[in-house]
């Protein structure tokens, strides 16, 4: 029982990160109907920026850990959002209205470019940050097994909750949220009603990148070891989460992320930790085969 609960906690913090990245995929798909394969790289850049901020903070002797974390979040979100905006501007906007394959190829090119760019400028070796917090809080103890919620895990879950709440509020309650949803439903009609569709798409990319940046900071906080290639596998897993939840659906992305996190945690708990990726990607195949709209996705109605 304690063991299962511990794995549940592990899955929760892992799933929170997948969820944050998955939202970027799902929002972009919702608004322009393409998979932004460079999104994993945006997350990787977010993680690198937070390591850079950490190094800068240590060099300047910036004090308490929460302050360092805030600085990391602020810097990473700001600059990663810029990257997100630039990627859309350079690689996708010129291809608006082109056949669907064109932006997809452009996305793959962008992904390769960003990965190599970071490898060249930051080096191919791993970058690491020592643990900001050690240990955790004991939640419950039974049969010699103490269920522990690590401080870093706790921070990941809390930050994700706050960010998600803010994001949900923005999408459902603000003018931008309404514009965003309108463009998602019918970009032409939205444009006729005076909404700047290009600007809304730009903002969508910026928000997706900002959420990926939060995931990047959380990765650095919890794992502390990153390199230029982390975006690929995390991106594919978050994509799986988005598909599982129903691509295009924001709550679906969050739910999909959590489910993927739980699957990985419990697979390595009770089956073979060696093959947990097999489990994740089997889900992708099964969902695409049997329920292509995912758990919370709306079936794509053919417009005549």
């Amino acid at each position, binding site marked *: 029982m304690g*063991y299962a609960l*511990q*794995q549940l906690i*592990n899955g929760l*913090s*892992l799933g929170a990160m997948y969820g944050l990245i998955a939202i970027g995929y799902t929002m972009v798909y919702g608004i322009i109907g393409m998979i932004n394969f460079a999104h994993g790289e945006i997350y990787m850049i977010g993680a690198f920026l937070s390591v850079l901020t950490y190094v800068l903070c240590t060099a300047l002797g910036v004090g308490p850990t929460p302050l360092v974390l805030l600085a990391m979040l602020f810097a990473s979100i700001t600059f990663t959002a810029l990257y997100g905006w630039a990627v859309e501007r350079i690689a996708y906007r010129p291809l608006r209205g082109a056949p669907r394959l064109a932006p997809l190829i452009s996305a793959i090119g962008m992904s390769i470019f960003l990965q190599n760019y970071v490898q060249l400028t930051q080096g191919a*070796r*791993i970058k*690491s*940050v*020592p*643990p900001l917090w*050690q*240990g*955790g809080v*004991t939640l419950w103890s039974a049969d*010699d*097994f*103490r269920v*522990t919620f*690590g*401080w*870093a*895990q706790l921070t990941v879950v809390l930050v994700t909750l706050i960010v998600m709440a803010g994001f949900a509020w923005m999408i459902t309650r603000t003018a931008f949220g309404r514009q965003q949803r309108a463009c998602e439903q019918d970009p032409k009609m939205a444009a006729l009603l005076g909404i700047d569709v290009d600007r809304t798409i730009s903002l969508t990319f910026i928000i997706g990148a900002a959420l990926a940046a939060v995931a990047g900071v959380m*990765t650095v906080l*919890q*794992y*502390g*070891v990153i390199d230029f*290639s*982390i975006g690929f*596998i*995390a991106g594919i897993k978050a994509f799986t989460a988005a598909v599982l939840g129903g691509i295009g659906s924001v709550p679906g992305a969050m739910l999909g992320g959590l489910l993927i996190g739980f699957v*990985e*945690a*419990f*697979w*390595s*708990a009770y089956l*073979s*930790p*060696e093959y*947990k*990726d097999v489990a994740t990607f089997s889900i992708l195949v099964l969902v695409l085969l049997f329920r292509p709209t995912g758990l919370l996705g709306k079936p794509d109605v053919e417009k005549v």
Partner: protein
Amino acid sequence: MTPLRTLALAAGLAAPLLAHADWLVGVAGPFTGQYASAGDQIKKGAEAAAADINAKGGVLGQKIKLEYGDDACDPKQAVAVANALVNKKVQFVHGHWCSSSTIPASDIYNDADILMATVSTNPQVTERGLKNIFRIMGRDDQQGSVIGQWIASKFKDKKVAVLDDKSAYGKGLADEIAKAMKAAGKEPVLRESITAGEKDYSGIVTRLKNAGVDVLAYGGYHTEVALLLRQADQVGLPLVVVGGDTMTNSELVTAAGKLADRVYFTFTPDPRKNPQAAPIVERFRAAKIEPEGYVLYAYAALQLFEQAVTQAGGVERAKLEPVLRKGKFDTAIGTLEFDEKGDLKKPAFAIYKWTGGRYDYAE
């Protein structure tokens, strides 16, 4: 002709002959490129050894002359260097340094009947049936049995799990560790693999916690060890890790912070701490050279040459090879004895421990 003039003539004739009769020893390694620091150490050690031996009158009355070959750790260049050394008629080689250079070069020396002493650690160096190679350092796969035996005695009452990262190096090491542990009567409570390059190992770490594991024997690289340590700490498991020579990387300390103090690993013993080497170490330090890394290994390679040639009475392969294979040689890195393959009979590995960002012998 007066006898005096005959003598002078003879001496004149003999002088170039004598010069030619120096022992020509090839020293091959990376003297330029990424690993030039190791090459520099080899050069310092070989030079000092040659000077010391020559000062004592050389080997069988002849002086040692060194011939350098720079392979830059590039296998292609290593082949060219080996051919050049063979053309210069070297009689013995110390080198190469990188396993990937030693392997192709050793075929060329073998064809020319030149014996060699190397420090390359890849098992393949001596596993290809060549009889001209003598390895003066332990093999990658010998570490496993050292670790396994050490765990069985040091952590007698603890629960030990064995984990690897599925790489050739990691799996080989972990298999050897598990084998040696079982042979010593210590059964691992868990034997699993993980995928290197991932970030989240909380699942496996929780599994270790559930199995009550205290000590983790790990075959793989330092990055994953840092991740495992951090995530073990997150779930409240004070895990101790025992690994191989890859744990010497200081990135482990950056990534794991204070948790790195829980890491033990095997590495070749520091020859500077060998009592036999004390006078040599002192001489090096008097000459303002720190005999670190491969300095004393190069020194020992030439000592090996000196002792073996003296015993064999010549440098021809037919005479020298049996002596090297059967003999016992006292060198700066300890007493060397070789088996049929040319590996050390008693490979020396020491257990080290990280403490506060530095590593030293574990007690």
